């Protein structure tokens, strides 16, 4: 471990692995979604192309897990502001770019791990990975989805200082992203105007990529990937900009 990037990554991962309680609690919500949607709606689900609902749902719930845990990883920046550790990193002779990307890569790593746990839990509900040769792609897709939302969470955490309002702001953002996407069911039956809104939801593109690599459900992969990469670039640049502006 030599660089500031590595230090920030390492710290994020180490503290995550130490906190078993947080890990357990963070799995409750995805499990509830699996049960409610999987057993509840799954029985009434019929698909024309012979795909079971669980095959459709699991990538969505994995995506939701990534979305929530990575966005919330921005919270660690708020904690560091409050408990002072941020200052220690800001006076160090390292670039702020390394500090922020180290954090976000760390957040993305722990979220990906959490997503894998959900994927594994899906096995107990009859889910099967369509094509094991794609497993590296699954990891990459999960990681980049997580990176995008870690950057988003950290960008917002750079602007906000308040520990209490941050989670509610995040929920305010995440709920529409989750439900105005095809994470849990197809949006074909949504009113036209909402379908239009979905097109502007970054999370929907992530879900489509995950659904393709995990369950083999076709989508316009090249376009979705392009959108994801561009968004990572854009949000990454904005997050770096706001992080640079922090005065302790």
């Amino acid at each position, binding site marked *: *471990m*030599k*660089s*500031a990037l*590595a*230090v920030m990554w390492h*710290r994020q991962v*180490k*503290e995550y692995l*130490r*906190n078993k309680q947080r890990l357990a609690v963070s799995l409750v919500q995805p499990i509830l979604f699996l049960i409610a949607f999987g057993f509840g709606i799954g029985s009434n689900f019929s698909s024309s192309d012979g795909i079971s609902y669980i095959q459709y749902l699991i990538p969505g719930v994995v995506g939701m897990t990534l979305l929530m845990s990575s966005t919330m990883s921005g919270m660690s920046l708020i904690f*560091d*502001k*409050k*408990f*002072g*550790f*941020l*200052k*220690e*990193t*800001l*006076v*160090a*002779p*390292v*670039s702020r770019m390394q500090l922020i990307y180290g954090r976000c890569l760390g957040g993305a790593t722990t979220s990906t791990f959490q997503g894998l746990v959900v994927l594994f839990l899906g096995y107990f509900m009859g889910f099967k990975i369509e094509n094991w040769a794609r497993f590296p792609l699954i990891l990459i897709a999960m990681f980049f989805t997580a990176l995008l939302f870690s950057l988003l969470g950290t960008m917002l955490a750079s602007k906000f*200082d*308040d*520990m*209490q309002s941050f989670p509610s702001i995040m929920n305010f953002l995440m709920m529409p992203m989750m439900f105005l996407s095809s994470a849990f069911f197809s949006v074909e039956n949504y009113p036209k105007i909402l379908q239009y809104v979905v097109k502007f939801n970054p999370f929907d593109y992530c879900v489509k990529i995950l659904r393709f690599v995990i369950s083999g459900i076709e989508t316009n992969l090249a376009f979705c990937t392009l959108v994801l990469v561009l968004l990572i670039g854009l949000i990454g640049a904005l997050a770096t900009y706001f992080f640079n502006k922090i*005065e*302790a």
Partner: protein
Amino acid sequence: MSEKNFAIEVKNLTKKFNDFVAVDNISFQVKKGEIFAFLGPNGAGKSTTIKNLTTIQEPTSGEIFVNEFNCQTQEEEVRKSFGIIFQDQSLDEDLTAYENLNYHAILYKVKNKEKKILELLEFVGLMDRKDDFVRNFSGGMKRRVEIARGLLHEPKILFLDEPTIGLDVQTKNFLWKHVKKLNKEKNITVFLTTHNMEEAEAVANRVGIIDHGKILIIGTPREIKEKTGAKNLEEAFLKLTGEEIRSERVDQMDRMRRHKPR
């Protein structure tokens, strides 16, 4: 450009927050190897000055040189030059004492880090607690970890922002004894802020008194006493700054502290 024998040189520094002027066009120098104390009532601009000197805040106008490097254009060189002990704590409590120092050593590219970390832990008397989480430490112990951390990369300049607030007599004594020793043996320049006049009089070679963002006087404690006709530094301080009680501007940290979850 900065002159050779100054550790810190401040030229016409002004720092504004919206329309509040925290530091108002101040200029001063600190010589290499000097212990310089910055005194002032609450909200006088002491911490803001330190934050500008240590590159955590950008000056609104003016120039600062630390270890002959420009704080705005050579930030990285400046940051390598100094160590700081912050006014409020800045450790990661979810890490052990050793881990806090280890991350610091990597950030500052300290060579031979294991050996130096252990030496410093020994020095601050925390060797047997090195693998304990900082959250289980008392205030004084946390301070000692911060002292060890501030010295780990062998800085040329040490900033101490109100370092003895809330410390017990033993830790205070430990801190000043070693600050003086380091100053003498390694010629480290020390820039400190404090409310404690006796402390300032005892450790500092020179003292600057700041109020309402302006420097009122700079000199050795003796010069200041002579100029103001006071018996001691405290009397001189009160003569210069008046006896009115000050309220401090609420900064970001305080605002956050108010939202502490219960």
